[in-house]
């Protein structure tokens, strides 16, 4: 295998996994078992949110703990907005509201570092849930209107009995997000972003403005998390205050640590794995689910430090190195 072969192989794997996920999963969902579609949708929603978190926490070294706040805020905003205005427009509204609130919290806490930043953003979760409970005291928003598209006069409705449109939509969003993330991280802005994590003092001495470098990444992360939150509300058809509970935060955390903090595909792969494990465990031992997942998370954080994504990186790096050595021997 030469380097080009490895690259071709990688492209083939990526393209075939995209094709498989576009074709195979809906077919299985239609003809064999519908559960797979539900699992796929949930894993994509959680995967997008965790990818967004990973972009800030893993690549940027920002101890952003407000992910669940953004997720819940957009789900709630979506739920409230879509009952009054068009369901598609509500997506934009919830994105705008999340961006505004995150900008406020970032401006307040931009001087803080590490744990202080973490706590200030952790506070954001609480602030959001307190405000929402004050504004909308009823516990649950029911009957969020379903999305629909008109294609050549045929009305395609998104609902729980026909969840393939949700799946395709989420898949498109995930691919877009991965593409944008890749382009951003490979650009000079991305290099500066990572430099700020690796050695902040050095990066500052070179004249980088942390706010200017980090803001685009924060915006991208917030936008996609917000979309994921809105689709979560839209897919479930209802939102409750339990969305701010620690349980979803722990779920994100488990996915992130399983996938590997600061790896590219890790969070997505781990999200799929987590959804399957979670579903399987809640079928048989629902009570001990959290405990088992917690132990797995702790063990992964302690011993398998870069998670699944780290394994993928390790294998491809190993392949590359073997190839380089072989060429050197030839020469």
């Amino acid at each position, binding site marked *: 295998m030469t380097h080009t072969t490895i690259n071709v192989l990688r492209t083939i794997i990526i393209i075939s996994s995209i094709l498989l996920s576009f074709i195979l999963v809906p077919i299985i969902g239609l003809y064999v078992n519908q559960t797979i579609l539900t699992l796929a949708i949930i894993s994509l929603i959680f995967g997008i949110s965790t990818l967004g978190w990973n972009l800030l*926490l893993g690549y940027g070294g920002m*101890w952003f703990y407000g992910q669940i706040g953004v997720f819940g805020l957009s789900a709630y905003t979506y739920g409230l907005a879509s009952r009054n205005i068009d369901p598609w427009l509500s997506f934009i509204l919830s994105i705008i509201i999340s961006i505004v609130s995150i900008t406020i919290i970032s401006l*307040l*806490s931009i*001087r*803080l570092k*590490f*744990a*202080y930043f*973490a*706590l*200030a953003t*952790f*506070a954001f979760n*609480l*602030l959001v849930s*307190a*405000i929402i*409970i*004050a504004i909308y005291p009823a516990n649950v928003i029911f009957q969020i209107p379903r999305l629909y598209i008109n294609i050549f006069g045929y009305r395609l409705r998104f609902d729980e009995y026909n969840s393939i449109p949700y799946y395709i939509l989420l898949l498109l969003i995930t691919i877009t997000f991965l593409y944008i993330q890749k382009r951003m991280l490979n650009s000079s802005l991305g290099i500066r972003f990572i430099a700020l994590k690796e050695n902040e003092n050095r990066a500052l001495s070179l004249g980088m403005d942390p706010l200017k470098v980090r803001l685009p990444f924060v915006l991208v992360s917030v936008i996609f998390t917000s979309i994921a939150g809105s689709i979560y509300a839209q897919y479930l058809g209802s939102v409750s205050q339990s969305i701010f509970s*620690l*349980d979803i*935060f*722990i779920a994100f*955390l*488990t996915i992130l*640590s399983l996938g590997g*903090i600061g790896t590219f595909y890790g969070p997505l792969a781990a999200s799929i794995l987590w959804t399957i494990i979670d579903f399987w465990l809640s079928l048989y031992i629902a*009570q*001990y689910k*959290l*405990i088992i997942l*917690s*132990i797995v*998370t*702790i063990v992964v*954080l*302690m011993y398998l*430090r870069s998670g699944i994504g780290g394994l993928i990186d390790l294998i491809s790096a190993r392949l590359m190195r073997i190839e380089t050595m072989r060429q050197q021997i030839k020469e």
Partner: protein
Amino acid sequence: MSIIEDMSAIMISSFAIGSIYALMALGLSMLWSTLDLINFAHGSIMILGAYIFVYILMSTNNLLLAFSAIPIVFLFGIAIYKMIFEKMLKTEDSILKNALITLVLGAMIEQLLNIYFGGTYEKIPEFIVGYVSIGNLKIATQYIVISFISLGLLILLYLFIFYTKYGLAIRAVGQNLQESLLCGLNIKNIYAVTVGIGFVLASIAGILSGSIYIFNPVSGRIPLLISYIIVIFGGVGSFTGTLVASYIIALLYVGSSYYIGGSWSLFVAYLMMLLILAIRPYGIFGAKR
């Protein structure tokens, strides 16, 4: 009731609650400044202490024996340190990963308590039942007992940290790790004992607050957040700062829940924290770390 009586009632209850929060926040602050461990499991440890207390009390019916919950939590802390944190110390970005581990650990303890005891509310019986009345004001004796116990413990802790060799060692490790290694301090033992003490302080706070309020496995979450606010407000690693901050925040918390409403009091405390972070990012008494 007149304004003065209102105010004095608020003062008394916020003094008792502030002392409890001070115990908790000092534990957090010690762990943070010595080990760089940001312990998100502190609330669960607090409730764990209270549950062990209740369990021993129910099975033996002996109040004094129930206080053996405290050494049990101490051993638990050392065991957790040996099992998890000791292995994480030298790894890269261990602070972040330790913080994530404690978050998960806290959730795990909550869930275990939930499975074993059920989600129902428990309460520790009051140590001394009765009222003390000053004028029109009736004060539950429990509040006074708690204030005295926690004040005594705070004085003991102060003496331990500032006037014993072990306390000196703990402070030294927090200030400069390399230097204290050069002086031949046994870092691992000091870390283990610090974790134990931090957990013990949390569990004492849990036992004391459990004798005023009812609690269930998840009721450690709000005290955790409040003690974080206190630690940040007072400055990490500063004893006086944490102490002063806990009384200020407790006064603010109790006062705002009395005048504005209970659901807003945490919100007010958080706004206070954000304000302090924006003006003085290292807390009112904290040194730049």
